[in-house]
Structures are given as structure tokens and as C-alpha cells.
């Protein structure tokens, strides 16, 4: 198949970018989107032009490194799929494909389609550690986790931190990401002791990075490659309200369960 790419090209964080029209001929429908870009880059390099810079690592939808906005939708037209797992058969022959980087003040463009997502790392780091005994293996069944909590924590932990939620949100809000991270530890007994301090610290870090607020557009959940539920945003709000109005002013280290 033949495609016409309209790609965002930007030298570095300080320069102004522009859209570049690139013809992508003889693309196999079985290629992934990133393989298509590899082929285009190979040709650009041979022709003496600079290849399109984009982020990627595992290419199997688990690391969260990849991600571009394809025809106005982060990670492209296939729901619940990362850019690396998106295949060219979801495009039509002759289609114009507009490719832009994830856009947010907190995610500055490094070059072309590659963005700096260390804002997410700082939010994670702000969440801190869990209290966990090291040394001998824990006794089986010493710490009971209900089926409901285990399932919900697992759903939250599915977040790979790709940033598509921020990219899709008209407010560039990171609430789905932060909600998932706060919930996945807060739901489990191992993460309960720091539940209140964690939500404080992560929300403070989120705000410091300059993300917007949630106004319930639900665009984040529509593009999330892991289908993380907006329930976790509700849970984030609930946890922060709980932390401010219910948490007792003591070191919460005995607050297990």
C-alpha cells in the first residue's frame, strides 16, 4: 500500500517545528506502524535526509515508550493498542496519515516525535516506597487480599505510563495515570500504610509538573492502550479528599488493611 505521511519535524526543544509531507510507498499491511516508520527512515537515510526520530523500546505493547498522535488520536485508530502494536492494515491505500508528537507542557518535544516524559518519572518517584519486610519469604496467607481488591489493583497496574491519557485530554491532565498509580498500591495491604501520604505527594508532584485538571471528557480512557478505567480518577479524588479530611495526623505506619 502507498501512504502520504504528514509528519511533525522539529530539530530540538528550542526550535520551531513544522509538518513535512513524506510519501511512504510499497508498505506491507502486515507491518506495524513503527516498522513502517523504520522503512521510511531507511529510505530517508539513503536519500541523505535526516530520519524521523521516534520513541520505542519493547515493541510488544508493554513498556510504554512508544506513542504518537495518528490522525488526531494518540496511538491511532485501533482501541486498546499501543503504536508499536498497531498494524498498517488499519489504514487505507492512499490515505493521508498525520503524525504528531504527544502534546503537553509537561512533555516537551526532544526531536520530531520524541518527547521527554520524565515528568511521569518524577510523579512516580514522589509516590515513594512501600513498607515491606525484607529477609525471609512472607508466610503464605499471612496477608489476605480480597478478590475484588486484587482484580482492581491489577487493572490499575496495567498502566504502562505511555502518556496517551495526557496527550488525548483536552486539558492535558494526567489524572488517569496518577489515579492508576495511586490506586494500584493503595488497594493492596502492602501499599496501605502509605496510602494517604502517597496520594498527597503524587498529586503535589502532578500539579508541579503543570498538567491540567480533569473535567470528565473521558478522552483518556478512549485512547488508553490498556483500557484503564476512569473509576481510578474517582478513586484518586476520593483518596485525596480522604487524606485531607479523614486521615489522622500521625505517621500512618500502622494503618494496615
Amino acid at each position: 500500500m502507498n501512504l502520504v505521511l504528514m509528519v511533525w519535524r522539529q530539530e530540538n526543544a528550542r526550535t520551531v517545528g513544522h509538518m513535512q509531507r513524506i510519501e511512504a510507498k510499497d508498505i506491507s499491511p502486515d507491518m506495524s506502524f513503527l516498522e513502517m516508520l523504520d522503512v521510511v527512515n531507511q529510505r530517508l537515510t539513503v536519500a541523505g535526509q535526516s530520519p524521523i526520530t521516534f520513541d520505542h523500546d519493547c515493541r510488544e505493547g508493554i513498556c510504554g515508550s512508544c506513542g504518537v498522535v495518528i490522525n488526531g488520536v494518540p496511538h491511532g485508530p485501533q482501541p486498546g493498542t499501543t503504536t508499536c502494536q498497531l498494524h498498517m492494515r488499519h489504514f487505507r491505500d492512499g490515505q493521508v496519515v498525520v503524525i504528531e508528537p504527544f502534546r503537553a507542557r509537561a512533555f516537551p518535544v526532544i526531536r520530531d516525535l520524541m518527547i521527554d516524559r520524565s515528568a511521569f518519572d518524577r510523579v512516580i518517584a514522589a509516590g515513594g516506597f512501600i513498607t515491606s519486610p525484607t529477609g525471609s519469604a512472607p508466610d503464605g496467607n499471612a496477608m489476605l487480599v480480597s478478590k475484588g481488591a486484587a482484580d482492581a489493583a491489577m487493572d490499575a497496574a496495567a498502566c504502562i505510563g505511555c502518556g496517551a491519557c495526557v496527550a488525548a485530554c483536552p486539558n492535558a491532565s494526567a489524572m488517569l495515570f496518577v489515579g492508576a498509580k495511586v490506586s494500584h498500591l493503595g488497594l493492596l495491604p502492602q501499599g496501605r500504610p502509605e496510602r494517604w501520604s502517597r496520594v498527597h505527594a503524587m498529586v503535589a508532584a502532578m500539579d508541579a509538573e503543570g498538567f491540567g485538571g480533569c473535567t470528565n471528557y473521558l478522552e483518556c480512557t478512549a485512547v488508553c492502550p490498556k483500557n484503564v478505567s476512569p473509576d481510578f480518577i474517582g478513586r484518586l479524588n476520593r483518596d485525596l479528599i480522604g487524606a485531607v479530611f479523614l486521615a489522622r495526623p500521625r505517621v500512618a505506619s500502622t494503618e494496615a488493611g
Partner: protein
Amino acid sequence: MFGLIPFFRSTIGKKVLMAVSGVLLFAFCVEHVTGALLFLKGPGAINGYGRLLHYSAALIWFFRAGLIVAAVVHVTFATLLYFQELAARPVGYRNRRYLRASYAARTMKYSGPFLLAFVIFHLAHLTWGYNVVPGPFIAGDIYANMLNGFRTGWVALVYVGAVSLLGLHLLHGTHSMFESLGLRHRRVESLLFGFARVAALAISVGLALAPAAVFLRMIGG
């Protein structure tokens, strides 16, 4: 740890304030529908209702103060969040497609300011008695003032248009306030959404009946 001030400075805290003030404004709307429906019963009913409201100066100013505070908080934090959101994406997309965002959600920032403008017009018309509509203003005769106003075509249309916008604002707002207060959960999701729809529709239709009835000459000839 967050104190109260840092909490209300945080993105989530600001939204909580908008939701709490939104609940108060919502409750006022429900009460206001009752008042507006009394117009349909006739002059005795609505003027009597007006006298009841004014029974005690202390009481009415207690409620007015609450509403003024709620409105100021609601608009102030909406504005602050709006600028935070503008700043959060300095470079926009060339190509943008919405997948789930509803029309009501995307127009909150327009329906809100229009409502503010309407509220001021509405107070000027029926509370302060300024000359914003043709015809005389009679202090204390709510029925006559409403009838007089709505007899002018454009005034009735402004009222119907504004309460339709209110319905749109409440359609998203009522649902949004549950989420801002942390009440979102898939088990109650359809319930909350259903409540938002019914409430928004009931409030806007309830408020539109009086101006529409006069406009269509079903009341007052």
C-alpha cells in the same frame, strides 16, 4: 501533608470547590423551578410565594449570601482551572479527533459565562427592576413583571435559550460533580448518569414553561 489551603490550591481541590458550589447552585435551580411553576398557577400563587420568601429579611439574606458565595467560588475556580488548562498545552494539535467527549462537556466553558450574563440580565429584569425590558416594573408584583417581560418576543426567547443552555451545563455538570467528589464507580455510573439527564431535562423544561407559555399566548392572552 496537605493542609486545607494547599488542598484547595491543588487541581483536585479546586474541582472539589467547584463541585460543592455546583451542588448549592443545583439545589437553588431545583427550588427555582418550583417558583417558576407557580407562575402557571396564577398571580396569587407566585406573588404569595414571593411574599413567603421575603417573610424575614435575615432569612432571605442568609440564602442570598450562600448563593453569592457559591457563584463567586464556582466562577473563580472555573476561571483558574481554565487558565491552568490553557497553559498545560501551549502547542496544540494540527489534527484533533474527539472520541468520547460529549458536546455538553466540550461547551462547559462557553455555557458557563453565558449563564453568568443571563443571571445578571435576569436579576436586572425581575429583582432590581432596571429598564432592560420594554414596559413598566411593579415592585412586589412578580406575576405582572414576568408577564410583561415575556410578552416581548425576544425576552421570552432569551429566557428559553438561557435555560436550555443551563440544561446543557447541568447535563455535564451534575455528572461531573459526582466524579469531582470521588463518587465515580462503575456500579453506580449508569445511575449517576441517569440522574444527571433527568435532572437537567426537568430543570430546563420546568424553567422554560413560563416564558414559553406567555410567548405562545397560552397565558395572559
